[in-house]
């Protein structure tokens, strides 16, 4: 596999086209929060909305929708995030975010945990490209920021971020 194919794996190209969750949606009943993030390198912006279901013991990510345009890495990363965290309890969703961040930071030196990361494991090669890390993190940072705005269990990792 060429370096280019390693970066742009088919699953990434597919998600970049399909963009799951794209288009901001009415959050409906229950609490929700928006986060706006910007990539200063290229000027790309994303607005990401998280809506919670807080009827049970742990809050659950009821919906995630987003607006914005960007490169295939950033768009695919948000699409994959959408699929991984919608309908998940917030603590589990945060674990996925931590695993994803760890994978990107490892700069390709660690095999990603596909059990936890699913399609997001395809982004393991992105960390090798220092100028693309921000692309891969843009929407995930927005998701985490939205959860923080909602005040739902900022884990201990937050302190070190």
């Amino acid at each position, binding site marked *: 596999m060429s370096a*280019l194919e390693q970066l742009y794996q088919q699953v990434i190209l597919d998600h970049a086209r399909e963009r799951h969750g794209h288009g901001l949606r009415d959050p409906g009943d229950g609490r929700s929060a928006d986060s706006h993030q910007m990539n200063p390198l290229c000027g790309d912006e994303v607005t990401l909305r998280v809506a919670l279901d807080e009827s049970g013991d742990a809050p659950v990510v009821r919906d995630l929708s987003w607006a914005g345009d960007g490169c295939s890495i950033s768009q695919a990363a948000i699409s994959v995030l959408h699929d991984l965290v919608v309908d998940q309890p917030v603590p589990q969703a945060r674990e996925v975010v931590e695993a994803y961040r760890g994978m990107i930071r490892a700069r390709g030196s660690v095999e990603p945990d596909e059990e936890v990361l699913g399609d997001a494991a395809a982004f393991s090669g992105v960390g090798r490209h220092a100028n693309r890390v921000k692309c891969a993190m843009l929407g995930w940072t927005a998701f985490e920021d939205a959860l923080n705005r909602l005040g739902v269990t900022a884990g201990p990792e937050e302190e070190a971020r």
Partner: protein
Amino acid sequence: MSLDTVPVGPVPTEPAVAEPAGPAQPFDDAELTGIRADFALLSREVAGRPVRYLDSAATAQRPRSVLDAERGYLEHANAAVHRGAHTLAEEATDAFEEARAGVAAFVGRDPDELVWTRNATEGLNLIALALSDPLAGTDPGTGRYTLRPGDEVVVTEMEHHANLVPWQRACARTGATLRWIPLTDDGRLDLAAAADIIGPRTKVLAVTHASNVLGTVNPVTELLARATAVGALTVLDACQSVPHLPVDFAALGADLAVFSGHKMLGPTGIGGLAGRREVLAELPPVITGGSMVERVTMTETTFREPPQRFEAGTPPVSQAVALHAAVRYLGSLGMDRVAAHDQVLTTRLLEGVREIPGVRVLGPQTAESRIGAVSVVVDGVHPHDVGQVLDASGIEVRVGHHCAQPLHRRYGATASTRASLYVYSTAAEVDAFCEALAGVRGYFGRG
């Protein structure tokens, strides 16, 4: 004593390019081969292919003579300048001031009219800070150009952030108003609008000579003359013009102008602020400390004349020596021939890109009054993705907003992909870029 007579290591080798009679000719194949041999980096590979470096508008590669000059200075004459009575200090000072004279002459100024800065951004900030300094006027002879409420600062919509943000801040500090000359759809300044905007209230006109995104070379002689006629101070961002065109700031009528060393074959960490000596003399100091003072007591200080007034602290000496070597290199090529080479390749680049479906050029569609910085928007593919695919063919281009977000917004884009040329660029590199660009949309399923 000149640098030639001071034993500062290897004498810079300069390319043997003959000066033909008549209009400037572009470099022929043999000359270009000779030029490229001076740039060691150009022989490396990227992704298993010979590197095609098309990002010189961001930073240029440096010829061996520039690298040798810096190393030679450091190995033979390195010392603190303008102090010390020892041999090395004298040789270092000579080399430093010879560099000032050489670089100043290259842009049409006298040695005392060139202030060394860290880069063009610092030069522009220095000007904007000096013009918004509430202390201006308390130093004898300064303050004439200080911004006040009711004054207007005029920039253009094509400015690099470095010639926009400092003016936003200066206006916010002083109550002056920021105005800007809009752009036409084909990437030129709207001169009819400019004629209305530049008027009696204009205190400063700060404009780029050549756009780093559009490649447009602005008609600055006319614009600056108009501003001068209404009594405004003229500031020229010459970052992209000095490397590519013969530039004479005095002839252009630029009261103040900035440029950057690393875009003209020189090192990073050095740039120039070149200005009319009368204007420099009327600006207050900005960065203060050592080297820029006359008499200091515990409560008061008097300041030196320019250029030293604006050079607080230890200056970038070896970088100045290397930049001197860079302008010698460019001078021996002949800036008119550098411009002719740029024109030929820019025409080829524009014609090649025009053939590609789904690709739009930002800026003028022909090479007329244009330098070889060509930015494109690829329909349906983000510039980051474009740049990544080109890199897989060893083609190095700039992607992003190129520090010009308002310009991109004007043309309905967030970012673009820019190929930029220089003295060592070849037709084969231009063709390789066009060929790779033509494949990008297909790769992402858009073609």
